[in-house]
């Protein structure tokens, strides 16, 4: 078993929380893991990505090779497309539909969504609204993870456990909002 996942977004959107949830669950299952992150300058509103690799055997490179990712999970639609060179020919792409507009030349959202329509194995979810319904717009990252969860070879219950572990310190309310968000994402794509 081996899952190579690219997580994408804009600095500050919470892709590292997605990485932490999958990472915790993977380690709990006794899997190997390597996960590279972007720190520093790009975190100031620039494009950020994380290479997340889980496997039942040793992992060599911290970076996923081009054409090697099984899955792209993105919390921003334009950012999802930026990493297509890394995606396998039969890989899946799961993205939030709400754009994060912090550049003057951000393209028309319809032209971005058109690109997703060209990709057969793509799923676009309205994560911001679903997160709002779950209790907090800030848990949109968990909605996207939930939507992508069936392409990750970790049982869904393990992901929920990892959410409890990760957000436990912040109180029961935050845990339940994030679990709800994760479940909402999961149920919309089964």
């Amino acid at each position, binding site marked *: 078993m081996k899952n190579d996942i690219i997580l994408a977004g*804009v*600095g500050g959107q919470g892709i590292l929380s997605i*990485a932490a949830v999958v*990472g*915790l669950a993977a*380690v709990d299952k006794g899997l*190997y*893991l*390597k*996960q*590279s*992150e*972007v*720190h*520093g*300058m*790009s*975190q*100031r*509103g*620039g*494009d950020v990505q994380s*290479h997340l690799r889980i496997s039942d055997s040793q*992992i*060599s*490179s*911290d*970076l996923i*090779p*081009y*054409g*090697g*990712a099984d899955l792209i999970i993105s919390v921003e639609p*334009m*950012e999802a*497309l*930026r990493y*297509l*060179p*890394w*995606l*396998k*020919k039969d*890989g899946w792409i799961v993205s939030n539909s709400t754009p994060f507009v*912090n*550049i*003057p*030349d*951000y*393209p028309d959202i319809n*032209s*971005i969504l058109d*690109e997703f329509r060209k*990709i057969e194995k793509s799923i676009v979810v309205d994560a911001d609204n679903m997160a709002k319904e779950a209790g907090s717009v800030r848990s949109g990252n968990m909605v996207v993870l939930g939507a992508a969860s069936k392409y990750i070879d970790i049982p869904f219950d393990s992901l929920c456990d990892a959410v409890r572990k990760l957000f436990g310190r912040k109180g029961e309310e935050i845990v339940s909002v994030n679990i709800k968000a994760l479940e909402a994402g999961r149920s919309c794509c089964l």
Partner: protein
Amino acid sequence: MQKLLLLGDEAIAQAGIDAGMSGMYAYPGTPSTEIMEYVQSSKDATERDIHREWSANEKTSMEAALGMSYAGKRAMVAMKHVGLNVAADGFVNSAITGVNGGLIVVAADDPSMHSSQNEQDSRFYGKFSFIPVLEPTSQQEAYDMVFAGFEISERYKIPVMIRITTRLAHSRSAVQRRAQIGENSVSLPEDPRQFVLLPAIARRRYHNLLGVYESLPADEIMKGYNRLIPGKDKKLGIIAFGLTYNYLLENFPGDSITYPVLKIGSYPVDSALFDKISEQCETLLVLEEGYPIMEELLKGVLSGGRTIKGRLDGTLPREGELNPNLVAEALGMPSERGAEVPPVVRMRPPSFCRGCGHSDVYIALEEALKEYTPGRVFSDIGCYTLGALPPYNAINSCVDMGASVTMAVGAADAGLIPSVCVVGDSTFTHSGMTGLLDAVVKDSPVTIIISDNSTTGMTGGQKSHATGRLEAICEGLGVEKEHIRTVVPLKKNHEEMVKVMKEEFEYKGVSVIIAIRECIQTAARRKKDEMARKKGK
């Protein structure tokens, strides 16, 4: 023992704590920042009261660590590659003095310049200073090399460098901890004159250092990190330094590699190892992350030797970091990219956070400078460097920590008046203060704008030495009190800021304008923490 999921940086920090380190010294700099941050948040470090306060700059951190080593304890100092330029005087001479307690210098290089102004290779500094270098392949090896580094350091009484690059620093993996070692107690060096580098003593120490350096490749620990892995296919021999070994293995799943491979993790390297692989293989491929230092050495200057492939003959790119695909292409293996990026995808460069005080400073500065010709704003390293990008296009330089002050002084010397500097608070106390003293001594017509967000922002909001001290520092350095002006960079204060700037541009001596408003990121975090604390009560 417990397994932890750690960044390369964090693995080094945890290893320091476990290996009896008494002091961690650093100035923030990507990709090294998380080493100190991890020590600061460690329960063990707090309980043992391991030194974990940030230093003013890399030079002071290097020297303080050397001082702790003088007093017999194990110390570690961490910095980004360009930080080593700042610390270089202490670093190079620490090899001559040697150490007492174990001393590890962590240099975190940033090939491809993800967050830096160059991609210099710190292994050069190791060779230049006759300091052994350990270069880990994985988070686990980074952890283990700290134990090894302290042992080598105390065995030979020299500092040891651990060189990492961005990919390892900021990549997470499982790390197996070892049993903790107790800290050393205070003890003075056996030779009371060891650290007194008067020429007569320095010559003796240097002679001694050269002997030690020569003997290092034969050391058991050093040797353990360099090994020749046999292979049947002698068409090619591969020499993989540090992290590049991972990219090599990535292309041969399940240990299916058939070429002989020399894996190198410690320097200086026993030259017999190079002979061994070169005897077997007519062609050698050299994989190095950073500069082609070893490739150049192996190639030598004489023609007619072995064919050496690598960064110098175009087999690999001359610049930038390596990855599995580049190594595959160097091996002539297929490397397939996914779909191309559709043209609808735009660049998304980093930018000021919404509501950042730096942007208010630049908006006011643009207006205040309207009546002057362009090209007179010298800036520096930090979040405010983003003022170089549209829509601001506000600054004309960003070179090295503190250079904004001194370059403004030099330009004023040349007659570019007014000459303006925009520097952050932490960068100012890092290396701007001494330049301001130069300006005061000759009464330069410069305006120094310190954009004070009361934190070290770009690296994620570490404590700034400048907080609450800037006025006193400037006054102490001799700036006239009436030309130390304080403004609050908010939209509503725009007119006042422009007025203050214009007045000080007119003044033909040294002015300092302190534009003070807390970083909105650290302010938000502080408020959240306060709320949480209130709730907790």
